[in-house]
């Protein structure tokens, strides 16, 4: 019943997005087209990043087991473009802060889901061979959703003109953590030799921490005025 397995993974990956869309009230604002635009911006930003990486970063010539810390760090720095993209999306949408954040995050995360998870699931989960990695991939997409919402919120807060001075530092730190989260995860996996389920757990905990902090800051910012 391998198509069934594909159905399992698909629903695990996609339904949270559907639930979030429905329950966050976005459907009342006719935000579907705006989400699609956010998704298109995601595609454009990824293309630019790939071109930049391909042009300026040489391929790593070292041995198989050695992890190129510096190289990967530099590559992760290019992910700053994600922040710019999110900012671009949010600035084009008029409306309340929450609306902007949710629209940008939903569109971004959905585009990432379709682009990077759809085909592996279709090709892999449908096959005869069973592997836990497809379930893990679907869980990972759930975590990405929360991550992108938190990232969009932090970017929005960073660009506010009325951000109190005391918030500058925590917001910047959170911003940095968001961008380098991928790099940190790979670091953990290499140094501590984590198994795939443990890595997923660590990723979930990390994302949860980042999102809680950003939510805390957001609430404080919005309701202090």
């Amino acid at each position, binding site marked *: *019943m391998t198509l*069934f*397995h594909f*159905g*399992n993974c698909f*629903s*695990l990956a996609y*339904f*949270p997005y559907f*639930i*979030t*869309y*429905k*329950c*966050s009230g976005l*459907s009342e604002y*006719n935000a*579907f*087209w705006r989400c*699609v635009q956010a998704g298109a911006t995601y595609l454009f930003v990824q293309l630019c990043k790939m071109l930049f990486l391909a042009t300026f970063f040489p391929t790593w010539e070292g041995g198989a087991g050695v992890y190129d810390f510096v190289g990967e760090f530099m590559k992760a720095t290019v992910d700053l473009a994600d922040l710019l993209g999110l900012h671009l999306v949010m600035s084009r949408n008029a409306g309340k802060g929450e609306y902007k954040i949710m629209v940008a995050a939903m569109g971004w995360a959905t585009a990432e889901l379709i682009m990077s998870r759809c*085909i592996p699931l*279709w*090709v*892999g989960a*449908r*096959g*005869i*061979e*069973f*592997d836990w990695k497809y*379930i893990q991939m679907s869980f990972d997409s*759930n975590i990405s959703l929360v991550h992108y919402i938190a990232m969009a919120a932090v970017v929005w807060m960073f660009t506010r003109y009325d951000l109190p001075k005391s918030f500058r530092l925590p917001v910047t730190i959170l911003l940095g953590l968001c961008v380098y989260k991928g790099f940190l995860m790979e670091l953990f996996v290499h140094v501590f030799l984590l198994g795939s389920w443990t890595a997923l757990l660590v990723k979930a905990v990390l994302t949860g921490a980042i999102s809680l902090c950003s*939510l*805390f800051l957001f*609430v*404080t910012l919005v*309701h*202090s005025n």
Partner: protein
Amino acid sequence: MFEEASEVLENMLKWSFPLSLVLFLVLVCPLRAEAAHEFSVYRMQQYDLQGQTYGSRNAILNTEARTVDAEVLSRRCVMVRLADFSYEKYQKALRQSAGAVVIILPQNMSTMPQDIVQQFMELEPELLATETIVPVYFALEDEELLSIYTQTQISSSSQGSSSAAEVLLHTATANGFQMVTSGAQSKAVSDWAITSLEGRLTGAGGEDLPTIVLVAHYDSFGVAPWLSYGADSNGSGVAVLLELARLFSRLYSYKRTHAGYNLLFFLSGGGKFNYQGTKRWLEDNLDHTDSSLLQDNVAFVLCLDTLGNSDNLHLHVSKPPKEGSPQHALLRELETVAAHQHPDLKFSMVHKKINLADDTLAWEHERFGIRRLPAFTLSHLESHRSPARHSIMDMRPHVDLTKLSRNTKVIAEALARVIYNLTEKGVGGDLQIFTEQMQVQEDQLASLVDWLTAQPRAAQLLDKDSSIVNTLEYYLSRYLKDVKRHLVRADKRDPEFVFYDQLKQTMNAYRVKPAIFDLLLAVCIASYLGVLYLAVQNFGLLYGFLRRVTAPRVKQH
């Protein structure tokens, strides 16, 4: 949401037709999953000989794996290790209409105890005799295959014993394996040509010289063609024949030692399939040509079959040689040489009448005997039914080089004594001709046997372009004159032999989970989604909580 979604999609589809085309292609393309393990498997023999079918009839396989102690074996692939293999278990699997049988052989056969090897050797003809539609494969064991086997064994053997809840949990989470072969169904190979090679050394002294024919069949036989290396049977015979060709061509190259006998060397193909090569060669030479060495004066035909081991040497005859005939001379010389030069060798003559009612002929000399040519076979085996003649276990360690070279020397000395008529001339039995520069080279024999056993030499695998046939032809043409090929193709309407293909396949073992597992997973995912839905619905609670936490700080200002 669906209305706006459809509107948006309509707009998108208008200019994104290429995208949808790509999507369609992705959806339709065939699935090529990665397997847990991919390994080569070798199928059991499948052939028809004189209308009688032998072996496994089927090649395709797409079934779940089980080991032989599982309860339910029908439509499953039964995996057995050589150490656990027995004929009863095989019969049991067939009776329960198993989907396939895979026998796992160790990489290094010498690690197996002798009694198991012996038992398997005796089982091979029985396995082939029972014609079966179940595909039977042999695989060489490696680490991953062994782990697959142990996992399958654990899951197979626990099926009948534990409580219902345990069984349910176990079936829901266990790792099963699906075995799939990639090839097509086996079909008969049309127009297969069996090649035989002949070469000669012409004697000195004009016309009408007597001819001595030396014959050895170069193919091998076993329960799986790709695993039949045939070291002793008949790699040793071929090595002896080639070494004799070298020695006598050396003797014949000097005028003083150029004897008055023609020597005809024949490497026959299809020997294990009732000596097809020899049969057709004889027909062509005796019936279809006007003049041939075989028609005139044949002194005798000596067939070499399995000479690589043991301290016995038997001369198998279908009619005891008459006194005064050249055959009797050879018999006498062999006895003399054995007695005087190699006292450890026990030489004897074995008399067995040709039984035309049997399915297959016993020894190669019987083919010549049917055509009234005086012939015998020299072998260290006492009976033609010995399992060593048709076994995949017959590999390089079965050949003892010192004994092989000793046997070569005995044959060479005896032949030399016959062709130079040494006993008549009063030369004693102690005189050794093949010494010093003319000695039997053990290194040569070693490299020949090593080369012959480096690849399988089943008749189904050697067509006329194969490297073995070409190399043998090249080797013969270095020492002999008039090296010719002789092809045998089966008759179209009433074929004597039919070979089938798909003898070597790649088998994939896929890790699969049982169907209940998917249902279980679906239930878990549904509950997770339910919890998520509740969490998102009540997100406001978390928001309000955080507001209350931050509010007192604000109020203080």
